[in-house]
């Protein structure tokens, strides 16, 4: 698994998937995805993931997003202590 860390520089919420640009600066980001398979649990995970990304974005708090080595889909999100 790979980790991408930094501020959430941009967040785009769509009906079928959401996009998060995460990185140290607005011009140095990685585009990661939040998707849901449609199950209730998966939808809850995706919804709370977007809520967490949103809170981190508006409060300028760094996150660590976990995703596959060759996959942009976020499978875990962490906010570490400062």
């Amino acid at each position, binding site marked *: 698994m790979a980790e991408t860390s930094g501020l959430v520089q941009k967040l785009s919420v769509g009906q079928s998937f959401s996009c998060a640009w995460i990185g140290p600066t607005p011009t140095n980001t990685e585009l990661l995805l939040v998707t849901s398979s449609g199950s*209730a649990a998966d939808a809850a995970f995706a919804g709370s993931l977007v809520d967490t990304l949103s809170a981190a974005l*508006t409060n300028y708090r760094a996150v660590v997003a976990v995703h596959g080595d060759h996959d942009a889909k976020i499978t*875990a*999100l962490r906010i*570490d202590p*400062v």
Partner: protein
Amino acid sequence: MAVTTGFVQRFTWLKGGPTACVWVGSAPSPAELLYIQILPADSASTVAFKRAMVGLLVKAQVTGREVDVGHPDGSAEVTSVATTSCNPNQTPLQLDAIEITQAVQDLAQAVPLIARKRTVVRVYLSNYASAPATVRGELRLRRGPSDPPLILPSLNATVLDQAQAGNPSAARTDATRSLNFVLPDSHTGPGPLAISIADVTDVVSGNPIAFGCDRRPSVWFHASPPLRVRIVGFRYTQGMPPVTYTPTNLDFQMLLSWLGRAYPVSQVLSSTGLVDATAPPPFGCGDINAQLAALRALDMSSGGDQRTHYYGLVSDGGFFMRGCAGVPYSTPDPSAVGSGPTGPGTWGWDFDGTYGDWYGGHELGHTYGRLHPGFCGETPDDLLRYPFAHGQLANTDSSFVGFDVGDPVLNLPLTALRGTQWHDVMTYCNYQWLSSYTYQGIRLRLLAEAALPASTGPGAPSPGGGGRPDERYPGPARIEQTAAESAAGETMISVVARVNLTKRQGKLQYVHPVPGASISHVVDESPVSLRVVEQGDRRSPEYPVEVRLNSELSPADDREGLVDAVVPVTGTARAVELLIGGDVADTFEPARDPPAIRALRAVGTDADGVRMAVESEQPIEQSQSYAVQVSSDGGRSWQTIGVGLREPTFTLDRAHFPDGRDIEVRVIATNGFTSREVRHESLRLSS
């Protein structure tokens, strides 16, 4: 049932389950690990409840709020989450809020913090006890969980009175009603900072006082480009007997200080100079901006950092020159110049000795693309719609408050600027400061300008290494005493003209060779163009050029503005034409080649500086003029202190050169298309 109370130190949201893991405690380590898991059997309402708990825990973590997390004895599964109650009956001293401000901020810390910018942490406390208390405090600062904390004492003590308890909005409007902490530079670099209160002490007894409703915000400092600006003072003489007026040193100092305090920058890379206004007084800002644009074009041709903004400062001692600027609204363009008045007037609210600071902040704001939001008599041309009523910094005192972090060098104190009393700098209202709207707008423009190349001339190093305006790149090579032409036989010339689009009139004001400059971007459509006339009346294609309209026009005013362009001419060119709406509005015809300059001599000194005289083979003719440049770094960089000069004398002002350092001076005689120069080696302007 057990309750774990503390701050959310770490949060992880895992797809498996899905499961949220939260570490709750008073410090990153040790902290208690708890979890929330969404199960396949959970009903929709249970899923919603668990998601709400997750949401509150995340909000509590990113805002630094303490929580009570309920879970069964012997189990780490979270069953309830609540923010802790603030009970003044139990603990009379309560923490209301912590605000981290650099110029303007709200209690949610919505305005991003600029790394290395002077930063003040304001701590708001309420005392619900009947007896007032005077307290001081200490902050604990950490840049990471394993960093040893830095303990920072407050600058001040504050009196806490029961009658004022529970009203942080009122306290925010008065700098003496918060405990204020100026963060050290070591703790404002790019990245995070965790802030907590180490202690609060009774000033009278010296004893610590327990406080409730603790909060521990974490903030992020964003790397940001500097403000690059050259401030040019314009000197003029009028009256009988003649009196000469120049901006004071205080005018320059206060403007640069104000920009550093109010603008979203940590650094103002600045230089200053003083030049003689070529237009006779009472001139207008259009005259000054034309001269400033010509000065800037020469500086850029000499290797100046292309991202440097130029602003002209004019003393109101002789007359009041209303300010104006060019407005590159849609795309970043640091070549837009502005100018404005300065003097000791208070305007009824500004008592720091000069108003040129905020006035300059307004005009320079235009050069960063800012428009008038349309308050207090100005034309509303900000189409994005200003977000606050009456041009204020905020609609209520509970949202944005301005804060002047002060300047110890100029003895300026920390000052809170009430959001409902102070107005955005781009309005015409009194009490001017930057709103969050303008602050963010200028920050974004600075980021866009930082991506522009520092230099475009041949021989210039690659972009990104431009550095300070006073440490500029070496200019393109010049061959002294020869015509300045490019290898291709073309000479780049800077053309500065004033135009009135309403009357279809225009005047070519400054034409000067600028070897090494790039041809101006040709605009798709413009009512104004330039055309070169060759020998035999053969005319080049037209160069449509951008017109930067005067920023302060009202709907009833003529559409007046500035053209500032670089076009190529060949050795056979005999004129440049200015066309407005297809008609020739003005023509510049160069005179003969400029005279050779024999020498440049210091002919006298006075309290202000050194009087210099140019000796040339013959006096200059009509359409010939001098420009003067100085270098204080051995010729590595040059700054223009005179352009369009018709007299062979000028004054080097002592105040604008580093004391005791040798400077070099060069004079360029030009007919507009060709030039000759002479350099004077090593002159010292010690005071």
